């Protein structure tokens, strides 16, 4: 027996065992051998795998498999007949070629880019401005901050329907207001020039609370003495914002922007309720197009819809990788 084994044995011995029952201890040292180290290790590994298994199964069932199915769906010709017979012929990249060649692809991609970047830009800027404003803690600031959270608390169906009513061409309150100011009526939801702007306005309004909450908590974590020191050194309000607040908020900003990006990229409900992607394709984003292809007509085209969905996933992954790289660089510095 090696010293190693005896050490293992003594480590496994219950504390105070000898004092309680010396005979039992003697019997145990003579009795069946303790498991060798390799076996102990193996059981430790099993335990580790046992703990991992539920997560792995969960990830496999609910993430990897649907993703695999989506990719598989996009490289087959999956018609309603395949739905029942299960027979969907392999077509390679034909679905991707057809969506890239479709006259809807270019406007959908452009609309998606405009919708995402303009939404995030405004949501972030307004959210940050409000966070800085509320950071000063004045009377009733808590109440006001709570009011700003209302858009977040409302179901999207309610918000989008309300915006849809307010922006109605003939009887909406927004146009009534414009006309009272002597301006002409704008066909917010029914004009190809304005429909994307209309859904953008609604989406920005809905997204501000999310940015406000995260940036506000980010601001809380900046120690107050940094600001005090800067104030003593004679830094102006702008200087304090650009040289202290903004740089120290960078990690929080990065994650807010990434989450905002992913959330906005997949926005469907607001646009669908307000314009259904129309008129024509003027407010059709990739998410809307994917839905239209699979569920928008009486004859579902699941394969093309899956291809559009995969394009969306790839875009999201690219930006997530950019974020990870930027973060690494930030940590390195």
């Amino acid at each position: 027996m090696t010293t190693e084994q005896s050490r293992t044995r003594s480590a496994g011995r219950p504390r105070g065992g000898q004092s309680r029952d010396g005979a039992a201890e003697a019997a145990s040292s003579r009795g069946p051998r303790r498991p060798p180290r390799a076996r102990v290790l193996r059981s430790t590994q099993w335990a580790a795998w046992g703990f991992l298994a539920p997560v792995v199964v969960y990830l496999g069932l609910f993430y990897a498999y649907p993703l695999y199915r989506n990719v598989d769906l996009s490289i087959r010709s999956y018609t309603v007949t395949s739905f029942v017979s299960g027979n969907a012929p392999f077509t390679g990249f034909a679905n991707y070629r057809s969506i890239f060649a479709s006259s809807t692809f270019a406007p959908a991609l452009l609309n998606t880019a405009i919708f995402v970047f303009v939404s995030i830009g405004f949501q972030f800027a307004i959210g940050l401005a409000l966070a800085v404003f509320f950071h000063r803690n004045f009377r009733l600031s808590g109440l006001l901050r709570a009011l700003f959270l209302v858009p977040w608390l409302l179901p999207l169906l309610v918000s989008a329907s309300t915006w849809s009513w307010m922006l109605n061409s003939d009887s909406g309150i927004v146009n009534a207001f414009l006309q009272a100011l002597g301006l002409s009526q704008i066909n917010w939801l029914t004009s190809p020039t304005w429909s994307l702007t209309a859904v953008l306005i609604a989406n920005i309004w809905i997204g501000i609370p999310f940015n406000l909450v995260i940036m506000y908590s980010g601001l809380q974590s900046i120690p107050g003495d940094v600001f005090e020191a800067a104030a003593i050194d004679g830094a102006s309000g702008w200087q304090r914002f650009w040289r202290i607040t903004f740089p120290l908020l960078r990690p929080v900003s990065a994650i807010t922007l990434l989450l905002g990006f992913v959330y906005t990229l997949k926005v469907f409900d607001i646009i669908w309720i307000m314009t259904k992607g129309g008129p024509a394709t003027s407010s059709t984003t990739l998410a809307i197009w994917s839905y239209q292809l699979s569920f928008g007509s009486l004859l579902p085209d699941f394969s093309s819809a899956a291809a559009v969905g995969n394009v969306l996933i790839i875009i999201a992954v690219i930006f997530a990788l950019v974020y990870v790289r930027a973060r690494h660089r930030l940590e390195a510095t």
Partner: protein
Amino acid sequence: MTVHASRKARAVCAALLTFGTVAAAAVGCSSSGSSAAASSSASGGGTYTFWDPYPQYNNTSDWAKLIESCGTKAGVTVKRTGFDTTALTTQALLAAQQGKAPDILLVDNPVVSTLAKAGALTTTATNGLATGSVAQNILGAGVIDGSTYGVPIGANTLALYYNPKILAQAHVDPASITDWASLTAALAKVKAIGKTGITFSGINTEEGSFQFLPWFWGAGANLTNLDSSQAVAALTLWTTWLKDGYAPNSVIQDTQTTAWQEFQTGNVAFAENGTWQKAGAAAMGAKVIEIPAENGGAAPVPTGGEFFTIPVQKDTSRYATSVKIVSCLSATSNIVKTDNTLNYIAPTKAGQQAQLSGDSSLSDWVSAVGVAKARTGDNLGTKYPVISQQMWTAVQKAESGAATPAAALAAAQSAATAALNK
């Protein structure tokens, strides 16, 4: 055993148990699924399943009671489930995929061709359902490549409701509206007295196509040729109405329900809407005329309404009982009662006569249904949804001014051709 070892063993057991539960749940799901399928397809079972798109009717409704009594007559119990109409197509496809299709499926008529193409439905030649007395134009939606896949429960269609008070103020005689020119002239007179001319649903969904079809067909256009000069004429009519302010801009987004709500405000002279608004129209004193064709006469209108279908079962001996239940439900006395409740027109001459003898105001609707056409007819079948999607896109483009009617329809035709040849 040591404390450490026993703790590890417990942990492993717990983890494996968790894993086992997940796996067992997964297996349990699939095994319970297959046993349900087995029981539903077991022959001679006393329970037959029936799916319909009328979730508004609960088990105490006349509709549910009628189904129950037809089941009893056929010697079985019928288990009815009402789905939302859009959910029903997906439900039917999923059920067919898993071999758990209902015995009888009542489904919206344009969906029949989709389900038939999927191989989910039996033909009347296979299941033995009689179609003899059903009007051919209404039956058309259930005929694909020469085979019939069901019988209609009834039909609804579109017509032109008008507000007599507004027409009187504008000095328009509804009888003078016989073609597009006289209708447009009437709209101009209505606008002159400060009222809105007409509302319809020009939305970018199937509803938009459904509403556009009377004008499209009324110009003599054909769905296989979306960019014909007749089609351009029809779309130009709609866009001119919008441009000239005869129709409100909101029609681009209006569903048939919201368009109807605008008409109900009492400020709109005409509304293109369906049979189902009959009761609401009577309440507000609105009357109805047939939609005029471009050069006079009634325009062909699309048929709406559901079809009784018998989905494919593993146990084909079940079809005979399903046919008995459907035949009972579509027997003249029963179908007239049902169609009156649903605001539908009966699909048979006998049924229509019975409805007319009870309510003579239905005569306009009976004649409208008489000239109605199935959207999936002309042997279009599953080509229709592809064409329809391009058609409503073109309508949207032209209405919103994104393209001229001719350019929008030309783009629609090439997109439809590309999609059909894919």
